[in-house]
C-alpha cells in the first residue's frame, strides 16, 4: 500500500516537475510574432558570448515589442557569408567585420557600447609570453603565429600591418606555423599556454581575462597596440523598417536612464550605448588601405 502511494506521488511530482523549475513565468512575457534574428561574432568563448548578450537581447526585445533571437557564429567571416542565408536581421559586428559587411551588404550601424571608463573603442595588441624572449619581429622568425580571424581588426588587420611595418609581408613563410584561434579569448589562452609564440587580439578581451586570471597580466607581454577601433556595434540590414531601427537605436541609447536597463548594461559590461555612424569606422578603412586591402573583394575566410 505504502509503495503504491509512493509510486502515485512520485508520478505526480515527476509530471509537475521540480518546485523551483515550475515557478510561474515572470510578468514581462517576451513579445510574440516573428523574431529579429541577431548574429554574434565569436569574440570570446561562444557560450560566454551568448550568456553575455542574452539579457541585452531579452531587454531590448521587450522594450521594442519584437522578440530577439541570438545566433552565435563559429567564425567572424561566417557572419558576412551567411548573413542572408541564415536570415539574419542584424548583428553585433566587430569593427573590421562591420566595415566588410557594410561594403558587401550595405548594413547600417546604430550603436555601440561604452565601458565604465568611458571608452567605446578597443585596441589591437601584439602578444608574446614574457619568458619567450621575443621582443621584436626579428625574434619572431620561425616561430608560430596565431591570428583570430581574417575578418577581425585587432586579430588580423592590426598584426598584419604590424608585421608589414616591420618588413614581413608574407607571414606564412616568415613563421613556422600560422593558424586562427577563432576567438580573441582563445588567442589569450593560446599565448598564455604556449600554444603559439605570437598572437594578437582585442585589449578589452585580454583585460577582462586578466581581471579573472592574474597569470594573464603576469606572463603575457604586449609588444605593440593599435589605434582605437570602435567597439562591437549593432548593425541592421537595409530592409528593416526605419521606425523599428530608430526604436532600437533609441532604446539602446536611452537604456542607461532606465534602472532595469542599467542593470542589464552592468551585466553586459558597459555603462551605456552611444550612437555610432560609419565615420567611426574610418580608422579601420585607413588600416585596410595601408596594406592595400579592397574590402569589396577581400577574402575573409580563414583558409
Amino acid at each position, binding site marked *: 500500500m505504502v509503495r503504491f502511494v*509512493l509510486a502515485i506521488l512520485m508520478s505526480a511530482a*515527476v509530471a509537475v516537475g521540480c518546485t523551483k523549475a515550475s515557478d510561474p513565468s515572470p510578468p514581462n512575457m517576451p513579445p510574440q510574432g516573428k523574431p529579429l534574428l541577431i548574429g554574434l561574432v*565569436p569574440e570570446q568563448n561562444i557560450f560566454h558570448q551568448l550568456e553575455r548578450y542574452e539579457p541585452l537581447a531579452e531587454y531590448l526585445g521587450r522594450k521594442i515589442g519584437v522578440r530577439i533571437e541570438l545566433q552565435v557564429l563559429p*567564425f567572424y567571416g561566417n557572419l558576412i557569408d551567411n548573413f542572408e542565408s541564415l536570415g539574419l536581421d542584424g548583428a553585433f559586428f566587430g569593427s573590421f567585420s562591420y566595415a566588410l559587411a557594410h561594403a558587401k551588404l550595405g548594413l547600417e550601424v546604430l550603436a555601440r557600447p561604452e565601458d565604465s571608463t568611458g571608452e567605446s573603442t578597443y585596441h589591437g595588441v601584439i602578444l608574446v609570453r614574457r619568458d619567450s624572449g621575443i621582443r621584436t619581429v626579428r625574434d619572431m622568425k620561425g616561430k608560430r603565429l596565431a591570428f583570430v580571424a581574417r575578418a577581425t581588426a585587432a586579430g588580423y588587420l592590426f598584426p598584419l600591418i604590424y608585421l608589414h611595418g616591420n618588413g614581413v609581408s608574407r607571414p606564412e613563410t616568415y613563421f613556422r606555423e600560422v593558424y*586562427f*584561434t577563432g*576567438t580573441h579569448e582563445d588567442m589569450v589562452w593560446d599565448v598564455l599556454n604556449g600554444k603559439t609564440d605570437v598572437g594578437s587580439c582585442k585589449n578589452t578581451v585580454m583585460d577582462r581575462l586578466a581581471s579573472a586570471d592574474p597569470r594573464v597580466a603576469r606572463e603575457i607581454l604586449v609588444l605593440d597596440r593599435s589605434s582605437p577601433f570602435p567597439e562591437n556595434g549593432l548593425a541592421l540590414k537595409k530592409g528593416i523598417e526605419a521606425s523599428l531601427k530608430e526604436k532600437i537605436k533609441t532604446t539602446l541609447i536611452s537604456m542607461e536612464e532606465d534602472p532595469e536597463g542599467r542593470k542589464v548594461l552592468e551585466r553586459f559590461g558597459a555603462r551605456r550605448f552611444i550612437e555610432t555612424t560609419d565615420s567611426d569606422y574610418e580608422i579601420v578603412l585607413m588600416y585596410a588601405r595601408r596594406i592595400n586591402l579592397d574590402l569589396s573583394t577581400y577574402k575573409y575566410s580563414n583558409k
Partner: protein
Amino acid sequence: MKKKIIVGLSLYAFFFALVGVYIIVSIEKAASKFDNLIKLHQVEILREHLLLNIRGVQSDLTLRDTPYARSISHIVSNAIQMDKLSGRCFQCHHSEEVLSRLNRMRGKMERYKHALSRVITYNANPGRLQSEKDTAFRAGKDLIEDVNTMIALTSRKLTEHTQAALGRIAATKNLLFLLLASGPLLSAGLAYIYIRSMTEPVDILLDATRKLKAGDLDHRVPGLADEFGELGNSINDMAGSLKEQMVKMRRTEQMVVAGELAAGLAHEIKNPLAGIKVAMDVLSREEALSKEDRDVMAKVTDEIKRLEVLMKNFLNFAKPPKPRFAKVNVNDIIRGTMDFYSLGGASLPGKPEGIDISKDLDARIPERVADPLQLQQVLLNLFLNAVEAMPGGGVLAVRTEYDAFSDCVRIEISDSGKGIDEGIMGNIFQPFFTTKPKGTGLGLAICRQLIEQQGGSIKAENNPAGGTVFRIDLPAIRVPGAEEA
C-alpha cells in the same frame, strides 16, 4: 476519590491527545519523507537527462568533420541545453558535500564548453584541430564520469532513503497500531483500577456495618483513603459513641434495677431491722445480762447499724438526691471539706497519724454551678479513700487549676500510697466493686454519679511516682435558677 477521578480522566484525555498529536506528526513526517523521495527521484531523472545531453554533445563532437556531422547551431544548442540542465541542479537545496560536487561538475562543464568552443571556432592545421578535439572529448568524458558518479550517488541515496523511509513508516505504523490497541487496554485498566478502588472500601465499610450490627462495637474500620476514609472515621466515631451510650444505658439499667432492689430492700428490711434494733436496745437494758451476752448484743447492734448505713448508701446510689445547683467556688468547698475532715466529723474516722496534707489551689479559677453538698460528699469520699490507701502515712495532695481552652475547673486529689492494680483500674467506678474487706463497693460509683450530675467527669490513674490521682473536671454549665451558695 474525586481528585483521583479528575486526575485519571485528565491522564486519559492527555494520553489520547498525545496519540492524536503523534498521529498528526507521523502523517506529516511520512508526507515529508515522500516529498524528499520524490525530490530525489527528480534529481535522479534530471541527472540522467543531463547525462543523455552530454552524451549527445559528445556524439556531436565525434561526428564533427564526418559526413554525418550536425550543424554548428545544433551542437551549440545541445551544449546550451546541457548547461541549462546543470543549472537546474543548483535550484534545489543541497548539502555542502553535494554542492561541492555540483560546483566541481560545473567547473568541468565550463572546461568542456570552452573546449567545445575552441573546436568550433578553431582554424588550424589538422594536428592542432585533432588535439583540440581530443581535449574536448576528454573533458566530455571526464564530465560524463562525474555525472555518472553523481547519478550513482543519487541512486544509492535514493535506495537508502527509500528503505529508511519505508522502515520508519513501518515502525510508525506498528507504533500506531500499538497505540490504538493500547487505548481500549488503558480504558479497561483504568476502569478496573477505579472499580477496585471503589468496591474495596465499600466492601470494608459494609463488613464494618455488619459487624457493628452484630454487636461488635469494638470493631473499627481500618485506614481508608479519601472520602471513604472520612466515611470510615465517621462510622468509627459512631461505633465509639454507640458503645459509650450502650455502657451508659447498661449502667442506667443497673441503676434502675438497683433502685428497685433498694426500694424493695428498704421496704422489706428497714422495718424489721428497726424492730430488731429496738428489741436489741430493750434487751440490752436488762441488768441480768452477763457481760458476754451484753457484748454479743452490742456486736449485733453494730451490725444492724452497718446494715442501716449499707441500706442508706444503697438507696443513695439507686435513687440519688437531685442536685441543688448554686454558684460555688470550688476552692472554698475544698477548704471547707478539708477543715471538716481535719477537725474530724462526727461520723468520720479520725485523721490518722503520719498523713501530710498538701494544698495547691489556684486562686484564679472561676466559679462553677454545682451542688456544694454533693461536691463536698465526693471530696470527702476521695479524701477518706486516700487516707485508707496510706495506712503507714503519706501525702494527701489537693490541687486545683483552670483550663481556659476547655473552660474546665480541674480538681486533683492524689495520694502516695501503693496505687491501684492496672487490671482493676477500669472497674473501680463500677457499683459493688470493692477491694476492701468491709467495703460496699458503692463509694466511687456514687462519686462518679454525683460528679456526672454536676455535668463533670472523674477519672483515676496511677502516678508514675507512686500512688493514685483522681481528677475531677467541672465544666461551665448553665442551670436555670442556680443561686449563690
